[in-house]
């Protein structure tokens, strides 16, 4: 159960090795949190993160395959075993697959879409169903500005985020009145291991800075939050640009 000063008792991080996800979870770990469940494919890396945390909360590790959409329902059952409520769920698993030559290997689109879109969508619904029956709960879905206006370079990633992002915004709408809600987080370029070696984009940010913004928005009624927040205006313009203008922008 969440408390009156905005602290959740049970937090579940899906994608327990995601750097942004970890930072968000760490930022939400305030006195009052009883349990943090890290759901990850790489349980050792998740456990190492758990051990690095200075917290009184119990840290629990659960294995899952982030590409296995069919398993998501049972994963949610597992993390809410014994009737335990999920107060906050952070959905952070994803792949970037930067530099993949999809022209040479068209089938590889499935790797990205199956994790970022299909499995995430199944997970989103599984968690939402659970929270709807709880009568409360907040889902924090890590999306990306790449999904707001999909651009060349890595359109598969952008499109995978565009799909899950628009789905989540609509599901949040559907959940109105149930007590459950979704916060869609759209970070810009985040310096992390996922983007190591890549050229920094303007308004680059860090996982910790994203986490600060998310922690604040988690206790609000917001559906969408950008990190840094200036990107709301930047992408508000970008998404409206005619393709002909968009194509001429120097950042493309």
């Amino acid at each position, binding site marked *: 159960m969440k408390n*009156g*000063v905005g602290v959740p*008792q049970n937090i579940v991080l899906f994608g327990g090795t995601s750097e942004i996800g970890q930072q968000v979870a760490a930022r939400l770990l305030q006195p*009052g949190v*009883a349990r943090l469940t890290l759901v990850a494919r790489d349980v050792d890396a998740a456990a190492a993160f758990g051990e690095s945390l200075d917290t009184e909360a119990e840290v629990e590790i659960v294995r899952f395959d982030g590409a296995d959409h069919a398993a998501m329902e049972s994963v949610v059952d597992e993390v809410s075993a014994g009737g335990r409520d999920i107060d906050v769920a952070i959905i952070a698993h994803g792949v970037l697959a930067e530099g993949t030559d999809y022209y040479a290997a068209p089938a590889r689109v499935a790797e990205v879409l199956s994790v970022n879109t299909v499995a995430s969508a199944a997970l989103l619904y599984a968690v939402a169903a659970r929270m709807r029956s709880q009568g*409360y709960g907040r889902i924090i879905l890590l999306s990306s500005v790449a999904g707001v206006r999909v651009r060349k370079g890595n359109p598969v990633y952008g499109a995978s985020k565009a799909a899950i992002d628009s789905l989540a915004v609509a599901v949040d709408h559907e959940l109105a009145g149930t007590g459950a809600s979704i916060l869609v987080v759209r970070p810009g370029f985040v310096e992390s291991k996922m983007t190591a070696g890549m050229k920094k984009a303007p308004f680059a940010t860090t996982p910790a800075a994203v986490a600060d913004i998310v922690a604040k928005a988690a206790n609000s009624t917001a559906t969408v939050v950008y990190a840094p927040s200036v990107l709301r205006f930047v992408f508000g313009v970008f998404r409206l640009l005619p393709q002909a203008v968009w194509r001429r922008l120097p950042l493309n």
Partner: protein
Amino acid sequence: MTKQRLSGWGRTAWTVSDTVVPADVEAIRTVVAASPHRGVIARGLGRSYGAAAQNAGGSVLLMPGTAVGAPYSLDDNTGIVTAPAGMSLDDILRDSVPRGWFVPVTPGTRFVTVGGAIASDIHGKNHHFDGSFGQHVRSMRVLLSSGEIVRLSPEENAAWFWATVGGMGLTGVVLDAEIRTLKIGSSRVRVETERLTDFDAVVAAMSSDGADDTYRYSVAWVDLVATGRSMGRGVLTRGDHATAAEAGGGDDVLAYDPKVRLAAPPWVPNQLLNKLSIKAFNEVWYRKAPSRRHVGIESIPTFFHPLDGVRQWNTLYGSQGFIQYQFIVPLGQVEVLRRVIEAFSGQGVASFLAVLKRMGPQNAAPMSFPTEGWTLTLDMAAGLRGLPELLARVDTMVLDAGGRHYLAKDSHVAPSAVRRGYPRFAEWQEVRAEMDPTGRWNSDLARRLGLMEKG
């Protein structure tokens, strides 16, 4: 059943429950049978500050205004009131005061129901003199989750009676109760007001050797915003019901007409109650009290229910809501009170209203909050930065001093705080389980604190 978003008076931790206004006892039985998973809780007027009367994903019985329970009556010879659980103290007072009877215990608001008063075992300014609400309940009828209705009193099913007093609604649904009221000679209160320049003076004046025991009602407002030597300065008000002669005689000595004078504006900026405005308020409140002891005659609403004059005053804190922090420490732990006050003011937490009271001995209810000691109540905006850490620190100070927190106001303590603060918690759990073997009652408060979980 209707899906409804509910919170306590503090307007924090909103969740959605299925609400039902039960037409009769049978309707409650139906709801209980239909809610095997997330349970049922009864709700009165929603004046408890935290999540005691809401049940996320489960069912909530809205008791006010229902025909459940015995109808209201007052015996003019004995002063015994019979009231349905959903009836408010406000409703009772409107009838009883003109007939010369006053509720035995009233909190700072008269908008609480009889059921809620029992479930929270509420206390008032007369705790050191008269004890808490449960001590004035002669008997009550409670609907158990099995569907059976039992009569409980201190003589009949005593263990179940005292588990229900202060039991936060988790033993069953109170249907009605017989309450002993107090004979009064007038509808006025004779009040002595005294301004005290610092915290030590307030504590000294309220100690039992400071003649506090000779007053039925006694409470001090303390200024927690003032710093330095003025820290904890306050205004002590003490009194008793005025006799007919003191109230000026005449035909209208028992006249009672509580009015809600103002309504808080429907929309409030989140920063309305900020450090500066609270400081200014505290200064004015202190200055308006007479510097020397002053004796006056006040009305019941002015003395007992000043905030009820403003409808929905709880919205003044804006959209993030507020918490009310009330704890008690044993009489010898005045130093801890001081440290708690310093912890809050040191972090810039400004409290609009802070109230200090010396409580009398604990009653027989295992989960009743009041016990001999000092209780301090302060409220603060829920969205303050760093509040969870600060509260955790203060909670530990309170518990280490042998103190505890008031569940009717709690919005944040850890499950361990109940286990440490209430030494008879396990005993209460056993009695509760006896009354509700299938575990059908539940609330957000119970879920957060693990009140149904062993150990």
